[in-house]
């Protein structure tokens, strides 16, 4: 396959060095003072002298490094999930939350918080929250998918309406749970829903990275079919695209990625909507460039936002879900205005 770059703008591969710089910046900045020189020193010591136990190394290696890597992976996963949804619904305003993924996860998380005292052995386990959120998100999405499945075909407009209905239903059920919650549980649920990268450790980061390889590779392989799908389902079918299989792949792969991120980090919205948009404006609409550019832009965006969340009110933290919305919108508007004036 030839790679062809949009002639007006630099290729997406320029994002790779930008990502490396962002990661290094994120490692060097935080509430705990760790200047770039110290960061380099810790890495050098680990490379040559094995594991270190001083506090600088602990902060860098077991707190900041997993968090930054997790943020990059989460950003990439959310952005790619957004690309899949926008292709599936053939609408640049589609978002992974449309299929009920986020609200299903939030409902499951709220239920676990509320009922953890009722079944302590099962529900008080630290894995119970992310696992339930993941299962909850997938369950709601599967329901939406199944109900829109008629005579062997999935009707995308029906799926959109079902997603809206499910979001409303989950919201109502969450409201019901909130009414029954006591103060502590209420705050827990609220904080979970704001999203935080602080729960990342090396194990969960490695898990996310490992599992995400499959959807990323899968989506890269079907990028041509995704391009063709954008022209219309009937046209795509006449060009040899197996449309139903493709739709199923898009739903499954994006839900896997986004579901995992939401389960581990809470609700971090807006990334799946804004990043692909920005990627399209900068690097073109074809999935040939959209897929890698969205992945890289997402991986750059989230750690940058997280730097702000970690440092603005240090030693406390701002919830990243709120910040993605607050920061993403004006930047997107700025980019849109700039492109319009250039064109």
């Amino acid at each position, binding site marked *: 396959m030839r790679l062809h770059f949009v002639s007006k703008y630099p290729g997406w591969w320029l994002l790779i060095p930008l990502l490396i710089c962002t990661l290094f910046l994120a490692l060097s900045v935080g509430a705990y003072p760790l200047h770039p020189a110290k960061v380099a020193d810790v890495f050098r010591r680990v490379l040559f002298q094995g594991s270190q136990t001083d506090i600088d190394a602990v902060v860098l290696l077991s707190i900041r490094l997993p968090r930054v890597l997790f943020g990059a992976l989460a950003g990439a996963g959310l952005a790619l999930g957004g690309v899949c949804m926008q292709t599936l619904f*053939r609408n640049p305003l589609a978002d992974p939350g449309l299929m009920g993924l986020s609200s299903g996860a939030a409902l499951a998380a709220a239920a676990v918080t509320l009922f953890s005292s009722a079944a302590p052995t099962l529900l008080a386990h630290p894995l119970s929250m992310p696992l339930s959120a993941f299962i909850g998100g997938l369950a709601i999405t599967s329901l939406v998918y199944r109900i829109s499945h008629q005579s062997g075909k999935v009707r995308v407009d029906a799926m959109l309406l079902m997603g809206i209905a499910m979001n409303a239903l989950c919201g109502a059920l969450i409201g019901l749970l909130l009414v029954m919650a006591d103060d502590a549980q209420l705050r827990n649920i609220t904080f979970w829903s704001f999203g935080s990268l602080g729960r990342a450790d090396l194990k969960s980061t490695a898990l996310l990275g490992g599992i995400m390889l499959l959807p990323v590779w899968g989506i890269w392989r079907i990028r041509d079919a995704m391009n063709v799908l*954008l022209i219309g389902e009937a*046209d795509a*079918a006449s060009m040899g695209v197996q449309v139903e299989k493709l739709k199923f792949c898009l739903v499954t792969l994006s839900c896997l990625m986004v579901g995992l991120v939401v389960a581990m980090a809470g609700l971090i919205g807006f990334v799946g909507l804004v990043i692909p948009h920005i990627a399209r404006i900068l690097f073109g*609409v074809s999935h040939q460039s959209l897929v890698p550019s969205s992945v890289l832009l997402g991986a750059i965006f989230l750690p940058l936002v997280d730097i702000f969340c970690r440092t603005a009110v240090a030693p406390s933290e701002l919830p990243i879900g709120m910040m993605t919305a607050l920061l993403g919108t004006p930047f997107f508007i700025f980019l849109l205005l700039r492109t319009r004036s250039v064109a």
Partner: protein
Amino acid sequence: MMVLQNIQVSRSKRCILSAINLKLTPGEVTIVIGVNGAGKSSLVRLLSGEWQPDAGNISWQGTPLSSAPPLDMARSRAVVNQQADLRFDFTVREVVEMGRFPLRQTSPAQLELSIDTALEEVDLLRHAHKKCTRLSGGEQKRMLLARAMVQLTEARTAGEGVLILDEPTAHLDLRHQELLLQSMRNRAAEGLAVFAVLHDLNHAARVADQLVIVHHGCILKSGTVDDVMDPELLSGIYGIPLERVDTPGHCPNWISPAPQKKSSIPNPNLQNNHEKHLLIPTP
């Protein structure tokens, strides 16, 4: 060769097509005419594989259509629909290039050539870098035709394939209508079977090797242009009086006599009691 045998299609308990028997011969242009709602577009959907017949069978080169793998069929058959649903800002060239999706044996150089030739044939080469959403309806139509031509690159080399077009001349200006009709003839000359639904009787008469009239879901008549185009038959179908006018050195014209209206203001458009019409010289 695509063969339809005893096709019956019903939707929502309504019979849309019945007793359809049709052969699409390689190298021939088959044109379907008929009034609105006769079932012409349904026939297109059937041939494109979007609809399955309730009775009868469709076969391509002897294999039933339903058992042919989608990618193989896409290499041999391309469809140009009435309308494009374009929501993303692909460039014209990117859309036309999507036609390469089913191709397997085409080298990048051959592909580039095919794209360039297709764009030139539909007169869009100078618009190749324009965003497809900024095109007019007619330009989008031409772009879809170019894409279909790229999709059939390997079929054209092998000399066997089907090109299906649904009202391809709609929204096109005169010049581009001519280009399109010429393009259809070119594809037939390459060995493809071309199938198109047309509304303009004159276009149909000029370009068809096999002409089919669809009326109320059935094939009323099919054959050569001279066999099928009978003034009485056509007037009966369309519900307006039609005449054929032959002018030496020009293609035959189907025209309708002017309506008799009592008016004190003479109508400058009337000429010999018929509406003015443009004559097209024989190619």
